[in-house]
């Protein structure tokens, strides 16, 4: 059973978290209007703010901060797998341009057999 003090604590915590989330939303909308140099940096900043918001939701609304560690382990493992999927796909798509001259990031990628590349290079 929770005490009255714990109750007020929970309400206070959730309200503060909501305030932070709304503030960060305003920040991210404002930041979108500013050019930080390259498109890449803009993306990184936007994703960083989104991740801060997601962390607040996960830690406080979803109680990860106070629950048993197993829930957090499960959640983080899922994120890690997604990161691996993302990284390898990007690695492949990006490194194709370097290895196969003539195919740029703007043109659709064509499926070319590696033996053809080896033959054409020799």
């Amino acid at each position: 059973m929770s005490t009255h003090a714990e109750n007020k604590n929970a309400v206070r915590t959730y309200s503060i978290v909501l305030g932070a989330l709304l503030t960060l939303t305003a920040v991210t909308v404002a930041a979108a209007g500013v050019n930080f140099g390259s498109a890449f940096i803009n993306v990184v900043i936007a994703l960083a703010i989104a991740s801060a918001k997601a962390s607040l939701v996960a830690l406080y609304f979803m109680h990860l901060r106070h629950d048993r560690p197993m829930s957090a382990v499960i959640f983080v493992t899922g994120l890690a797998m997604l990161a691996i999927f993302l990284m390898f796909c990007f690695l492949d798509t990006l490194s194709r341009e370097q290895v196969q001259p003539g195919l740029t990031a703007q043109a659709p990628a064509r499926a070319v057999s590696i033996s053809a590349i080896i033959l054409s290079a020799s």
Partner: protein
Amino acid sequence: MTAASYLTEQRGLRSWLFTLDHKRIGVMYLWSTLLAFFLGGVLAMLIRLELLTPTRTLMDADTYNKVFTLHGAVMIFLFIIPSIPAALGNFVLPLLLGARDVAFPRLNLASYYLYVLGALMALASMITGGIDTGWTFYTPYSTSTGGAVNLVTLAVFVLGFSSIFTGVNFIATTHKLRAPGMSWFRMPLFVWGMYATAIIQILATPVLGITVLLLFLERVFGVGIFDPKLGGDPVLFQHFFWFYSHPAVYIMILPGMAIISEVIPVFSRRPIFGYRAIAFSSVAIAGVSFLVWGHHMFVSGQSVLASALFSFLTFLVAIPSAVKVFNWVATMYKGSIWLQAPMIYAIMFLLLFAIGGLTGLFLGSLATDVHLHDTYFVVAHFHYVMMGGVFIAFLAGLHYWWPKMFGRMYSERWSRIAAALVFVGFNTTFLAQFVMGSRGMPRRYYNYLPEFQPLHVVSTVGSWILALGLVITAGYLLASLRKRPDAPPNPWGGMTLEWQTSSPPPTHNFETVPVVDHGPYDFPPLEAEEELAGRRA
């Protein structure tokens, strides 16, 4: 005198269709997946018949494409992936843990009904045009071809959820429903194997879900992610597809290995060698399995850098598997070997899995893969690991737990005849395929150069021997069901908890909640168990 059991305590169709008992759900899964195996097997026989001659034998090229596509899809999605976890695992896992059921019995039943729904959808595709894309559905062919691709992609989506629900259940059950005294390192290794499998089911299957969903949407709405004409990338489809489908092969093999880890100690009457190594290897395989999917795409247009990285990681994933093989063999060393059917199949597994696993290394090396990709070498490799590995392990588990599930012992004599036929038939069928693949025979080809015919004939004859062995197996197993129940609670002398209850068990599994005070492979000396020693002699 026949005691009441989960089979008899409630009767009637409704008591089965609405059951929440994990044992009944396991049995329903068993019959369903075996039916799927039978269908997949018939399709395989048709393929082998067609390939007896270099040109048309009994069907045209379009039909041939549909037959091998369906063979792959049925075997993979309707048999191999669900069979050990959902049929044997559902039955045995709670018993091994000393639990009364899985954590979420209703989810378990839902998983079964999703399986049935997905299966019916996939089978309906046979009469609504069929699919000829290969089980891998590569784009852009799969986005533009006619046939029942839409129906099959939705079927796969549904089947994916069936698999996910099983995985969720097993993890929660392992965490929360272990009997008092059963610490993580006193769990039977079968549980570790199923736990590792469940991790993969949960992490990988959703990506299959989104892949088939995107394929469906591409066909229906022309979304454009995979079609070069619309600005898409067909290799991206392959990344999506193999991100699931490579870990999927570990969803297949880990449960098989889990069975071997149970059978070998009992039939060698020795504790497993390196319990923790095997337990951790299972989880390691689950983890590393997510890092190697690009080895299916070496000649698809994937960058050389990514290919090299995937190749290196592929070599890594072989290590935990090898650790397990060494440990199983070491367990047998100086053991008291009892060659009953489960053990015969377990030893067969060791040989066939070793061949299958080692040939995977040829395919994982970039330079050799260029020559072997899309040849019969690949077909032989995966049949050695999936059939010689997973299916043989499934047979080992089926024979091991058959008395527990149905309360009957089968004919040992007929099981040996069948095992011999299966072994000879299997190797005849697939060794020939390694040879023809390395000589250039492409896979999925309807016509072939006449020089390959002798090896194709050998392979087809092998398939007949294999089929005979399997028909005999079905025969003696079904015959055993017509006997009166004659199985003792513990026919094999096992030390895991399922043998502490009757064969078959009562609906609530255990009369009293077991308390665990020893490891799963702590066998007392054989001399102290006269009755068992007598049977083993």
